[in-house]
């Protein structure tokens, strides 16, 4: 702002406002107005056309339909949903399903990708080769093709539901998905959840205290073991205190399908495995280049200080590698979240699939697409903010 006024003053000092294109200040303003003008004109033209089209055909507009009854069924949902609920709630079911598959996918892909990335650097020739074959094959095949493949494996190659495979008692594998027994409903599970939350809070305090003490006195504290003990111990106490319920809700073949237990549907399985396997190949490359980016001298220096190799990795190599890894890792997470929209093609009810159904039923295409885009922008923004925060936390503090 300040520089602008100064520029104008200078222009004025040189003999009044010159409105010629040879004046850089004026030229910049002129070009900006021109470009903004063109963009606004094109935008206005498209919007005017759209409004004209909508009103001439008397097509309904607005988001009023979100309040109306959806009256279509959804295969799987994290919250209670029936066709009696509104389009708004149906959309929420879709958003939650997207989040579910994205978050699980991110966790699994990170684990698998890290393992493969480290395996590529292994001194074992066989492991390194296998890992690079994996990366080269998976990266170079379209994710949608891989999804179709995983889905076909379940639907075409698994046995029908009446001849379900039964590898472990209570676990059934068939075209309808994987049915596993879950502990039967009991208040104890809720108490264990509360105990776990408490444990997390205690762990945070303990770690802070241990860090302080080490900074003051130099005495290390075995935080790792304490953390593990607390996280397991608290819920275990709750479990024992609650009477140690052992009842299981075992799936049973009843009528057309298994009843009871928990189910991993073929659609969910295909999208989760597809996203994990695909993204892991990219994460492996990110991890590998991150580790390679740390100068070998750092490892040698750590050894010279007498750090054992695990400590070398934990205290010297990893913190430096993470700084290189996190930015590209963020974009891989974003890609995974965006690729979860491919669920539509195999019938997993993610938000795109449900918005698609909604826009078909209501005929309101613009609102439907706007909802998809808005939600994804929010998710992308969320991941970016979180990863930026994390990146700042691990960034090199220059003194």
């Amino acid at each position, binding site marked *: 702002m300040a520089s602008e006024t100064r520029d104008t003053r200078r222009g004025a000092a040189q003999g009044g406002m010159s409105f010629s294109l040879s004046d850089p200040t004026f030229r*910049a303003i002129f070009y900006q107005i021109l*470009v903004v003008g063109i963009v606004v004109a094109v935008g206005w033209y498209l919007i005017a056309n759209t409004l004209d089209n909508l009103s001439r055909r008397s097509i309904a507009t607005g988001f009023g339909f979100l309040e109306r009854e959806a009256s279509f069924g959804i295969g799987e949902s994290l919250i209670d949903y029936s066709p009696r609920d509104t389009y708004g709630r149906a959309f929420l079911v879709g958003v939650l399903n997207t989040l579910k598959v994205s978050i699980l996918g991110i966790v699994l892909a990170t684990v698998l990708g890290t393992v493969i990335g480290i395996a590529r650097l292994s001194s074992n020739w066989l492991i390194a080769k296998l890992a690079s074959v994996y990366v080269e094959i998976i990266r170079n095949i379209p994710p*949608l093709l891989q999804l179709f*493949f995983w889905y076909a494996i379940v639907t075409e190659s698994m046995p029908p539901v009446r001849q379900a495979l039964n590898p472990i008692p209570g676990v059934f594998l068939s075209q309808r998905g994987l049915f596993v027994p879950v502990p039967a409903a009991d208040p104890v599970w809720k108490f264990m959840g509360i105990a776990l939350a408490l444990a997390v809070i205690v762990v945070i305090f303990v770690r802070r205290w241990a860090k302080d003490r080490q900074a003051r006195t130099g005495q290390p504290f075995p935080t790792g073991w304490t953390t593990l003990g607390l996280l397991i111990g608290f819920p275990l106490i709750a479990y024992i205190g609650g009477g140690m319920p052992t009842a299981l809700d075992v799936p049973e073949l009843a009528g057309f399908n298994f009843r009871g237990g928990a189910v991993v549907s073929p659609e969910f399985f295909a999208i989760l495995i597809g996203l994990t396997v695909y993204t892991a190949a990219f994460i492996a490359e990110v991890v590998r280049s991150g580790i390679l980016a740390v100068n070998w001298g750092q490892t040698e220096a750590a050894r010279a200080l007498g750090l054992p190799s695990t400590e070398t990795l934990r205290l010297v190599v990893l913190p430096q590698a993470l700084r290189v890894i996190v930015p590209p890792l963020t974009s891989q997470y974003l890609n995974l979240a*965006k690729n979860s*929209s491919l669920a539509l093609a195999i019938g997993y009810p993610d938000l795109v699939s449900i918005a698609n159904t909604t826009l078909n039923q209501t005929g309101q*295409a613009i609102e439907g697409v706007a909802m*998809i885009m808005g939600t994804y922008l929010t998710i992308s923004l969320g991941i970016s903010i979180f990863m930026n925060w994390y990146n700042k936390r691990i960034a090199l503090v220059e003194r």
Partner: protein
Amino acid sequence: MTESVHTGSIPDERPPANTVGPVAWLRNNLFNTWYNALLTILILYGLARAIPPLLDWLIVHANGFDTTPQECRTNGGACWAFVSEKLRFILFGTFPYDEQWRPLLTIVIFITLLLVSCDRRFWKWWLGLLWAAGFAAVAILMWGGVLGLTYVENTNWGGLPLTLILSVIGLAVAFPASILLALGRRSDMPAIKVMSVTYIELIRGVPLISLLFMASVMFPLFLPTGVSIDKLLRAQIAFIMFAAAYMAEAIRGGLQAIPKGQYEAADGLGLNYWQKMRKIILPQALAIAIPPLVNTFISFFKDTSLVIIIGLYDLLGTAKAALTDPAWRGFYREAYLFIGVIYWVFCFYMSKYSQKLERDLRRGHRR
């Protein structure tokens, strides 16, 4: 006492067997520690379990090119008859059967263009002309209607030519747009900067499917009544919008890598903005940006498979359509393997090329 004195050279001895040679290699690379030895043995066992049945399915018990589907089903093993029966449909879609040399030639033209453009000896001004000529030839071949070729509607285009058209033409059109966007993002003019950033981040923040949906169901409403753009062109526009945003980011990376001195030197020579960009900055920035651009193109090439969702028949679409034939239902492994290999060959060679280029460029910098 006679001392034995060697005259002449001592014959070269092979080093001891435990430092070089296959045994040493095995020891150094597979059995250097106890856990590596354990892992090696586990993996070898796994491979021994997995590979023979795979080979058995792929080759030994596979059915030849002229088996019937019934024989395939009873024999087990891969059914390559499916691929040979559906080969032309998968590659060319519903293009008129007798005219299918035209899409075949289209594929050849595209591959030639890509190969020629990969060779740095051909990075001359006439490369642009070659591309224009290639596109003209493709348009004539695919549409026809001139030179005695029958007219073919673009609803009949499909298979590999469609995949190549969407990706290669998308790339060619998005490239200049992405340069403008990248320059816009680094511009001093606030309005232009804001608009470029908004566009790039908006497109990169949403999945490609939503853009394709927009092209498929919203574009028609944007246009005045009676004016319509056909489905293929709409998908192509969506791809261009998508590619432009991602390529702009790759180019921005290149622009950021140019040291400030280059800008200042250009300013010092009295060059104006466009001269500065065209003669000094862009040639260097683009050279740096080529490897990430190739990577963008690879992911873009894979993403063309998404058009199946809006009802266009690219390579994946035709393979899926071939699978719906009741007589040949269930041979999905063969179908996916076949097109998977096609996609893989394209992407793998492009990624190898980008790695090679990266090495070459690094070497250039070191000098």
